[in-house]
C-alpha cells in the first residue's frame, strides 16, 4: 500500500469513530432482539454477517414473531433498504473506475453513517484517486463495531429471561431510527398515513395490511409534496 492509501484509510476510520456511539448500542439491541425473536445463536450471527443491515434486521423481527409469510418479510426488508438504492446511485460515479472485486466489497459494506460522511466530503469529479480507501476505512470500523456489538447482544440475550420482553427493544429501536427519517412535511404525512392504514388493515391476511400501508404512505407523501408549496404560498 502507498502512503496516501494508508492515510486515506486512517482518515476514514477516524472520521467514522464518531459514529460508534450510535452503532454500538444499536448492534447490542439487534443481537438481543434476534435471539428474543427465536433465532438460534448461529442464525443470529449469520444474519448479522450476511445481511449487515440493522434497520432491515430489526424491521423483520416483529413480523417473524407474528409468524408472517416469508415473502412479506423479504418485501419489508426490501422497502426498508430502498434508501441504499439512493446511496448506490450517489456512490456509483465515485467508484466506477475500480475493479469489480472492489465494487463488490464497497457495495456489501455500505452503511448510512459512512455514506453521509463520504458524500459530504468528496465530489464525483474531484480527481481524488484514494477516496475509496477513505470509504473502506470508515466502513471497516463500522463493520467490526456492528459485528462485535451484535455478538455481545446475541450471547448476552440468551441469558436474559423471556419475561423481560426484550424483543420489544426491536420496535423501540425502529422508533429511534424512524425519527431522523422524518425530514420534511411530506415524509411525516406519508408516515402517519402508513401508520393509520397499518392499524386499520392489521387483520388482512398475509400481512397485506403492511404492504398496503406502505403503498398508501408513499402515495400520501407524493401528494403532499405536490400540493405543499402551493398551500404555503396561499398562506403567505
Amino acid at each position, binding site marked *: 500500500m502507498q502512503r496516501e492509501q494508508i492515510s486515506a484509510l486512517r482518515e476514514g476510520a477516524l472520521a467514522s469513530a464518531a459514529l460508534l456511539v450510535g452503532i454500538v448500542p444499536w448492534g447490542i439491541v439487534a443481537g438481543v432482539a434476534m435471539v428474543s425473536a*427465536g433465532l438460534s445463536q448461529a442464525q443470529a450471527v449469520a444474519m448479522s454477517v450476511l445481511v449487515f443491515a440493522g434497520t432491515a434486521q430489526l424491521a423483520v423481527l416483529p*413480523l417473524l414473531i407474528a409468524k408472517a409469510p416469508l415473502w412479506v418479510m423479504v418485501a419489508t426488508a426490501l*422497502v426498508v433498504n430502498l434508501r*441504499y438504492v439512493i446511496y448506490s446511485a450517489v456512490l456509483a460515479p465515485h467508484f466506477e473506475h475500480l475493479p469489480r472485486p472492489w465494487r463488490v466489497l464497497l457495495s456489501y459494506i455500505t452503511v448510512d453513517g459512512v455514506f453521509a460522511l463520504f458524500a459530504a466530503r468528496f465530489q464525483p469529479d474531484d480527481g481524488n484517486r484514494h477516496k475509496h480507501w477513505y470509504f473502506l476505512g470508515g466502513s471497516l470500523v463500522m463493520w467490526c463495531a456492528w459485528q462485535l456489538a451484535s455478538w455481545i447482544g446475541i450471547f448476552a440475550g440468551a441469558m436474559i429471561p423471556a419475561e423481560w420482553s426484550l424483543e420489544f427493544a426491536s*420496535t423501540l429501536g425502529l422508533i429511534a431510527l424512524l425519527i431522523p427519517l422524518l425530514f420534511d412535511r411530506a415524509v411525516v404525512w406519508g408516515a402517519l398515513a402508513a401508520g393509520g392504514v397499518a392499524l386499520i388493515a392489521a387483520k388482512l391476511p398475509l400481512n397485506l395490511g403492511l404492504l398496503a400501508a406502505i403503498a398508501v404512505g408513499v402515495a400520501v407523501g407524493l401528494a403532499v409534496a405536490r400540493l405543499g408549496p402551493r398551500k404555503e404560498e396561499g398562506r403567505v
Partner: protein
Amino acid sequence: MEAESWYVWTLIAGMAAIAFFTRAVFILPGSHLRLPPTAERVLRYAPAAALMAIVVPDIAMAHGVFSISIENPRFVGGLVAFALAVSTRSILATIVGGMLALTLVRQFTG
C-alpha cells in the same frame, strides 16, 4: 420459542440478497445511470412509511385488538420512546426509556 429452522435460514438468505442488491444496483454496473426525481422521492418516502407501518400496530394493539390506553404497556412504552427519540435523538435513551416505561406499566397493571 425457537423459530422453524429452514424458514429462518431462507429468510436470512433472502435478506442477504436484498441487502446486497439494493447497495450494489448502481455501484456494480459502474455506469452513469441516473435516478429520475420521482423515483428518488418514492425511495425517500418508502422507508419511513414502512417503519411507521410496523411500529404502530405493534404498540397500539394488544392481543389482536386496538388498544390505546394507559393499561397497554407496549403503547405507553412506545409513546415514551417516541418522545425520547424526538427530544434526545439517542437510540440508547429511546430504548432504555421505552423498556422502563413498559416494565413500570406492567408492575402497576399486574
